[in-house]
């Protein structure tokens, strides 16, 4: 056991690098996902069939085919067509597309939850479509979205463990290496899972703060208790629970 701990301490610098890779995938994937989610989320609710049709098809396609398949397809098959991406880029694109499709349902549902009267009042004040969305609709929808997006973010971190199998040296890789060095499965995997847990916990905490800020801007802010800020709460908005989500994403 003391040998194990010595080994772990020796590998702390490597852990830093590994966490960095996992975070790069997480943040890169999340950024791509949110862009995709906003585009497809709005696309899915336009009047025009030429925009809505393709948006729906893309969303259903990336939700319906598994993340694992998407990632390895990009890794193994895309080069056949002459697109050779770095492994990190493959991971970010796969995570971004998959979770972006799920998040687009969150965006769509949240936008739909903003009362129609808000759009109408904005029209009566002669705002452009973009102005309405940016200043009136999105700030209100955003507060609804955050808890569900927080859940998806955790799913995304968990999904990123897959990247080890396309040669990335992430936290999963670090765990495998630690096991190789210590020959102690229980110790090394417990350590690896704890690292993932801490990452997920800190991200959840950050998202709780974002949510609180968004709510305060809607004038619904209550100062959260310390326990609320640090709690890992599942999504609780019943109106949005109906949108099908990946694991942990809001069937509750």
């Amino acid at each position, binding site marked *: 056991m003391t040998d194990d701990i010595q080994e772990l301490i020796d590998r702390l610098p490597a852990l830093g690098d590994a966490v960095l890779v996992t975070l790069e995938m997480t943040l890169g994937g999340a950024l791509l996902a949110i862009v995709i989610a906003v585009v497809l989320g709005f696309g899915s609710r336009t009047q025009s069939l030429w925009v809505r049709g393709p948006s729906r098809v893309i969303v259903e396609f990336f939700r319906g*085919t598994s993340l694992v398949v998407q990632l*390895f397809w990009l890794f193994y098959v895309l080069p056949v067509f002459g697109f050779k991406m770095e492994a990190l880029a493959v991971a970010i694109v796969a995570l971004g597309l998959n979770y972006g499709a799920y998040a687009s349902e969150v965006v769509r549902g949240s936008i739909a939850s903003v009362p129609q009267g808000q759009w109408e009042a904005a029209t009566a004040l002669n705002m452009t479509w973009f102005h309405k969305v940016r200043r009136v609709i999105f700030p209100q929808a955003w507060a609804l979205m955050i808890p569900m997006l927080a859940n998806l973010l955790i799913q995304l971190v968990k999904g990123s463990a897959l990247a080890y199998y396309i040669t990335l040296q992430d936290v999963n890789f670090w765990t495998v290496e630690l*096991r190789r060095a210590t020959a102690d499965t229980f110790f090394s*995997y417990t350590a690896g899972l704890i690292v993932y847990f801490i990452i997920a916990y800190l991200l959840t905490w950050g998202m709780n703060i974002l949510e609180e800020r968004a709510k305060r801007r809607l004038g619904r802010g209550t100062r959260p208790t310390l326990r609320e800020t640090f709690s890992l709460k599942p999504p*609780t908005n019943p109106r949005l629970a109906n949108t099908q989500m990946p694991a942990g994403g809001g069937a509750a």
Partner: protein
Amino acid sequence: MNDDSIWDWERAWEVLPDLLAGLWVTIQITVLGMIIASVLGLFIALAMRTPSKWLTTPLKFLVDFIRMTPVLVQLVFVYLLLTAVPGYVVGFVVLGVHYATYMSEVYRAGIEAVPKGQWEAATALNMSKGRTWRAVILPQAIRNTLPGLGNYAISMFKETPFLFAISVTEMYKAGQDYGANTFSYIEALTMVGLLFLAVSYPTSLLVRRMEIRLA
């Protein structure tokens, strides 16, 4: 065979039986995993309602820990730890336990959605606590949880490919093996993706209909 074309129908035809055999394994694991998730999830939800902090605090931590760490790493962990247990069994048990942590939330919400008046009516009829749960609360709560169960079954189905990491030949692994042997992944992996879509999309439509009917 036409060497110029990227997609080869002959290969696609050749790999299809392997994929369908893999699909069957995938479905078995999803069903077994969801049975564990539904039963264990209910027990977790009920245990969390006990007033004993000595039980709920560690349990909540354990549930959060399982829920917030990658199921892929959990699968490999258990597989390496319990070398005597076949990957197939490790697969559906670990997926089942992982999803039990989600299902416990579904049950919690389902139980909380039962109106308070139902408890009060049961008290007024002098029902025992156990009888109240079995005859009044759970039948209503479980009805509320069906869409959640359906959604999680679909997402578990799409996560069974993680089992490639513990050498279980489900559908994805079947496709990957074929690709590795022939150095051509395009037909196998594309068809695996489409088969996932072909099962999960119609199922998700069914679940959505159920949600609307139960809402």
